[in-house]
Structures are given as structure tokens and as C-alpha cells.
């Protein structure tokens, strides 16, 4: 466990200390700008009317849910292949945040779907694969919770994360592979976005705001995780160290 006391985590914590205020500030600015643009600058859609404004949180949340899982998958490779000491910290810290973004994507999606499709939920490929993503996130969180030793839990979770990463391409291409209600991708395309700039800009600003939010939360959660491991190490040490004061105190009443 002494490994954790040195070099990387300590240096990382110092870095977080410096970077975090700037990131937080940027995140607040970007969110404010994004919210303003999505409500006051973006026009209403000729088909969907005002509900198109839900898109400005739905699409970034959906992107983030996948980006977060990609980060976890890379971190898992870091745990298993490169054995980087911060890799499983990063993976563990990302899971609840990813679950929250996935939840947001699902909720906003069904609140958008009700007025557009007439139902909160349909079992089509895109929606179902995102739901599966949410279950994966929750399963990973539970796996981490149930295993006592963080090193073992990290390895087990890394294996599961990498296997679950097969779901990512399914989510991405589900709209192309299957015939679904969900509209196809319009921003991330090989032949350039098919979307009007008045809509594209607010969307991009919101996406930047969400990404910054993710990194702020991720860094904070990673810092917590490092602290949690320190607490664990110290507690093990505290239990094993016989306390001199209490040893003196026992001598009298026992006689």
C-alpha cells in the first residue's frame, strides 16, 4: 500500500488543486452561455416546435454517457496492461458520473419522446442499448461496492468494463443498423454536419459545458477516491499499531 503514498497520486492531487478552479470557472461560463443560447438564440424547429430545446441537453448527455464509458475502458486497459496506479481510481470515479449522464440522456429522451412519438418509451435498438449501458454502469458500481479490497475490485471491474465496451459501437450505429424511431446522427458524420449553424452552435457550446462538467466532477471524485484509499491504509495501520497509552491503562483495572 505504500505505493499509494508516493509520486503519482500525490503529484496528481497537487495538479488537481491547480487545475480544478480554472476548470470550474470555465464550466460555469460555458453552461451559462450554452443555456442562454439554447433558450434565446436557437430557433424553434419547423417540425418539432419548441421541444427541440430538449435536444441541447439530451444530445450532450448522450455523448457524455458514451465518452465516460470510453474513458473507463481506456482506464481499464491502464489497470490491466500498464498497471498505472491511477487507472482504477479513474475508472471507479467515472462510473457514478457516467451513470448520471446516461440517466439524464434517458430521462430527457423520454420527455422528448412523449410529445413527439406519443410514448415515453419504445423498445427500439438505440433506447434499449442505452438502457443496457445504464445497467452496465450500475452493475460496475455495485461490483466495486461489494468487494472489500480496492485492488482486486479494480481488476475485476476492469475486465467487466472491457467486455461491456462491446456495447458502445452497438449504441453508436444502432440508428443505422436497425430501422428505429430515433433519428440518425446529424452532427457526427463523415460528410460533415447536416444541421443548421443556428442550432449547431448552441449544441456545441452545451457539449463543451457538459464535457467540462464531467472533468470537474471526475477530478473531484478521483481526489475522493485517493483519499478513501489513504483512509483505508491508515486504518489498517491504526488497527495494527498497539496503542501505548491504552496498554498502560489496561494494567491497572485488570489486576
Amino acid at each position, binding site marked *: 500500500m505504500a505505493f499509494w503514498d508516493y509520486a503519482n497520486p500525490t503529484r496528481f492531487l497537487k495538479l488537481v488543486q491547480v487545475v480544478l478552479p480554472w476548470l470550474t470557472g470555465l464550466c460555469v461560463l460555458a453552461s451559462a452561455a450554452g443555456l442562454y443560447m439554447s433558450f434565446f438564440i436557437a430557433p424553434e424547429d419547423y417540425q418539432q416546435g419548441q421541444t427541440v430545446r430538449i435536444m441541447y441537453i439530451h444530445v450532450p448527455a448522450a455523448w457524455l454517457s458514451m465518452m465516460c464509458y470510453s474513458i473507463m475502458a481506456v482506464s481499464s486497459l491502464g489497470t490491466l496492461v500498464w498497471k498505472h496506479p491511477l487507472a482504477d481510481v479513474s475508472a471507479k470515479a467515472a462510473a457514478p458520473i457516467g451513470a448520471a449522464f446516461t440517466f439524464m440522456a434517458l430521462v430527457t429522451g*423520454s420527455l422528448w419522446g412523449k410529445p413527439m412519438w406519443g*410514448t*415515453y*418509451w*419504445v*423498445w*427500439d435498438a438505440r433506447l*434499449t442499448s442505452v*438502457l*443496457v449501458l445504464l*445497467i452496465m454502469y*450500475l*452493475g460496475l458500481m*455495485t461490483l466495486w*461496492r*461489494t*468487494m*472489500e479490497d480496492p485492488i482486486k475490485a479494480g481488476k475485476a471491474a476492469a475486465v467487466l468494463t472491457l467486455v461491456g465496451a462491446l456495447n458502445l459501437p452497438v449504441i453508436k450505429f444502432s440508428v443505422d443498423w436497425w430501422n428505429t424511431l430515433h433519428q440518425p446522427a446529424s452532427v457526427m458524420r463523415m460528410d460533415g454536419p447536416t444541421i443548421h449553424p443556428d442550432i449547431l452552435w448552441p449544441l456545441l457550446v452545451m457539449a463543451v459545458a457538459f464535457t467540462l462538467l464531467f472533468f470537474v466532477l471526475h477530478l473531484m471524485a478521483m481526489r475522493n477516491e485517493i483519499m478513501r484509499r489513504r483512509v483505508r491504509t491508515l486504518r489498517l495501520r491504526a488497527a495494527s499499531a498497539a496503542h501505548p497509552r491504552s496498554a498502560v491503562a489496561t494494567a491497572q483495572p485488570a489486576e
Partner: protein
Amino acid sequence: MSTWALALFQRDLRLSVRVGGSALVGVLFFLAVVTVIPFGVGPDLNLLSRIGPAILWIGALLATLLGLDRLFQADRDDGTLDLMLMAGRPLELVVLIKCLAHWVATGLPLVVAAPLLAIFLNLEPAAMGAVTLTLLVGTPALTLIGAIGAALTVSLRRGGLLLAVLVVPLAIPVLIFGVSAADAAIHDPVPFLTPFLILCALSLIAAVIGPIASAAALRFESD
């Protein structure tokens, strides 16, 4: 009476919520079961909304059974059960309180999750409310009946599967009246209150029979 009961309740609740506990696994399993059904029966929303209450009830039953095998086994494995038998507290009450704590940690989350999952199954708001209400009243019965199975299989290493087999037949009445009350709320002419009151009665009966039978089984088991 109140101090020791409260201490036991708090302890069991803490154990299931803390690291290594299993409080939320049940909800996750519930979610997984409900997600899997549409793959099996096809994504037809009309069909799903018709069988939705049944799916939710079966999901809740399975999720409850899943978590029950550790109800007494964890205490037996580390010698706590022996001490509980000698503690000078009525064992029936001890079982009842353990069941209550177990239900708060695992059954109540299922009830809370039910309306959310009902959205996936395209249930009407009325049906959603009815299913949630029947689950709120009915899941304690499942826990209390399951406790009998948990007490009978307490000394078996792999008791979980046997537990499910033993308990499912006993839980069928609860399932019947739970689903028929929920269905009655959807289809107008059938009265909702009749099956619902029977369900309440079943829970109350289970609250008496469950602890008595489990306590007897635990006493024999320690011999």
C-alpha cells in the same frame, strides 16, 4: 423491548447498506429482469402494457428471493445466531425485526423503482399507481414467507436455489392477488378493493406465520 429491537433493526439496516452489503443489488436485478422480458416477448407496447403488472410482480418476487439467502446465513456463519438464541429475547420477534430491516433495505427500493420501470412497460398512470401500491403492501409478505425458506436452508452452503424452490409455491397466493388487484385497477368493471384487501390480509397472516415458523426452524437447526 424497544431498545434492543431498535438496536437490532439499526444493525441489520447498516449491514445491508454498508460496503459489502447487498441492498441495491436487488433493484438492479429487478431492472435487469424487466429489461429482458421485452426481448423475449417482443417490443409490442400494447402487449407489454397488458402484461406489465405481471412482469413487475414476477420481477419483484425474483429480486426478493435473490436477496433472502443471506438473511440468517450471514449470522450463522460467524456464530451470531448462537448468541441470538441465548440473548434472552423472543426469537419470533427477532425474526420479525430482521425481516422488517431486510424489507426496508431491499423491498422498499423495489417499490420505489416500480413506477420508473412501469414507464418502460408503457403502463397507464392508474396502473402504475395500482402496481406500486400492491407491491408496497405485498412485498413484505414475500420477505416474511421467504424468511421461512431462509431459516430452513440456513445451514446449507448453496441454499439460495433450494430456498427459491421452497418459497415459490408458498408465494403464489401473494402473486395471484397482487397481480389481480393491479389488473382490476386497469380494467374498469372488476373491483380493485376485493383482491387488494385479500393481499393486505395475506401480508398480515405472513407477519404471524413467517416469524413463528422461521423461529422454530432456526431452533431445530442449532441442534
